[in-house]
């Protein structure tokens, strides 16, 4: 399998964030379906407080990477550990923010209860939440700006409100790692910014590491520490400036692509034929008038 000798391996040792032992450690990790390798020989140390974006075309294995961290899929090679332990199926210290999926009408929860699930959702029995836990829920409602609709049924909330509530649910457990799987998709720009700010604040204040899968780096460009770009069975890791470059991505794709920086945004041109990326039809992805300058 082809592996890119990534120029920035040494960064793994001195990753941004507050230091301390890595939250997530991948050593020579690989994942393949049959004979098709999604990625291999992947070394990644995610430090506390570090924000890593996982980029790449559809089918490159971005979501599969998250699934391996969640223990829903096994690595074909190499090892992965979370907080020094081998990964297992889910973990109390992992906060997961999925793609927006509107809650069904008839979900017997209010916004407040959804956030409470982050605190007490995995507890057995029906012992009511303690006073401290209830006030924690109130505090998080306030933090994510959900106090106004705290007692509204979640199915009645707008998409942006639901997604803010989900972020609240994820950070309520005070996670060491926030796994985000396209959490901004289908949100308008105002809510994209809001959700990004919430995630960024959580990792700065609580030292949570963030692994953020997205097809569009632009909404999170100013908070990202490192980028893991996966394409065609190969990958590059480094700061956005080191990875999101014409020469690096052309090499990765094996075909000429142009990385254009315009108005503070990064647009990748030429790679559209092989996959959908920043310039695809997603209405939120590459609108030039989003005011992000």
């Amino acid at each position, binding site marked *: 399998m082809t592996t890119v000798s990534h120029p920035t391996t040494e960064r793994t040792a001195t990753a941004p964030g507050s230091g301390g032992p890595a939250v997530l450690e991948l050593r020579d990790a690989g994942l393949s379906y049959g004979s098709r390798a999604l990625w291999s020989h992947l070394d990644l140390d995610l430090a506390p407080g570090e924000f890593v974006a996982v980029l790449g075309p559809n089918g490159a294995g971005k979501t599969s990477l998250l*699934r391996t961290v*969640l223990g*829903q899929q096994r690595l074909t090679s190499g090892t992965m550990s979370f907080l020094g332990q081998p990964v*297992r*199926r*889910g*973990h*109390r210290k*992992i*906060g*997961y923010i*999925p*793609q*927006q*999926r*509107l*809650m*069904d009408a*008839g*979900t*017997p*929860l*209010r916004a407040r*209860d*959804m956030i409470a*699930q*982050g605190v*007490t*959702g*995995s*507890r*057995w*029995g*029906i012992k009511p939440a303690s006073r401290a836990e209830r006030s924690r829920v109130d505090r998080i409602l306030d933090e994510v700006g959900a106090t*106004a*609709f705290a007692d*509204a*049924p*979640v*199915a*009645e*909330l*707008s*998409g*942006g*409100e639901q997604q803010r509530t*989900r972020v609240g*649910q*994820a950070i309520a*457990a005070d996670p060491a790692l926030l*796994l985000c799987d396209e959490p901004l*998709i*289908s949100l*308008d720009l*105002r*809510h994209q910014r809001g959700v990004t700010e919430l995630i960024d604040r959580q990792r700065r204040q609580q030292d949570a590491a963030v692994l953020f899968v997205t097809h569009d780096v632009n909404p999170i460009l100013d908070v990202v520490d490192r980028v893991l770009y996966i394409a065609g069975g190969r990958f590059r890791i480094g700061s956005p400036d080191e990875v999101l470059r014409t020469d690096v991505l052309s090499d990765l794709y094996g075909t000429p692509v142009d990385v254009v920086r315009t108005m503070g945004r990064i647009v990748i041109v030429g790679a559209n034929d092989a996959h959908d990326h920043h310039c695809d039809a997603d*209405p939120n992805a590459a609108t030039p008038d989003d005011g992000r300058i």
Partner: protein
Amino acid sequence: MDIWSQVFSFQDYGELVVLVQNSIWAGAVLGIVGGLIGPFVVARNMPFAVHGISELSFAGASASLLLGVNVVTGSLVGSVIAALLIGLLGSRARDRNSIIAVLMPFGLGLGILCLALYKGRAANKFGLLTGQIVSVDNPQLTLLVVVAAIVVVTLLVIWRPLMFSSVDPDVAAAAGVPVRTLALVFMLVLGLATAVSVQIVGALLVLSLLVTPAAAALRLSSHPVVVPVLSTVFAVVSVVGGILLALGGGLPISPYVTTISFVIWVVCRIVGGRKDKRGRDRIVRRDQRDGGAPRLQADDADHRSAAGRKEGATA
């Protein structure tokens, strides 16, 4: 007014109530079971599974009628087998529905075969499908109460993780909730609850006990405590009320139970409809206050279906 007096007859009512007090107790217990499990059935989108399980429960009951063994045991066996099959083979929603659709007619056919071969009283046969008010004897009541207690205690123990994994399986799994184990335990409990409900309302009408009260409660509230409480009250009122009304006439109990539970649902729907409108108004007000752009409805719908497919593939 002949039909009327047949439908509602209260002659010798006091003596009858004493005669069937076991049935009334059984009904109250079943109401609690149905009311508590209902919100999960709705949240997990499993009403069809309930229907499928009840048909296999019917098969088990008719087989035991034919073989001359305990009918409750038979329907328990049928239910649990069906529930486990559905739980093991149908972890994805789409698979689940087709598996239920395969099992259900098979169970119903098997049941009809057993009933056709059975030479006993015809009322027994009919009762399995549409419910009966046969005086529940003491051992039978004990069995019902024990099974119901197992269901209720299990539900209370797994309540929070089960609700978490019912409304948001991916997120719950990420947080370490044993989603798959809970799904199987829930199917087992649902099998037991269905089997005991079949005894009173009959295989065809179990939904009126396990789904309708919860659906009605959800029209009124989304509060995680209010919903199960309301749903339990509705279910108990339906069953006990149905038994009390059915006492005098010689008719099956089920039309009374289903009608009461249906009327409750209609009332809740009308009251809840007003609430829906208030909710929409609140969203509009919030959006205006936040100064945001209007929501992209079409876009939301697109992503919803895409996410639904994705969920189906990963569940």
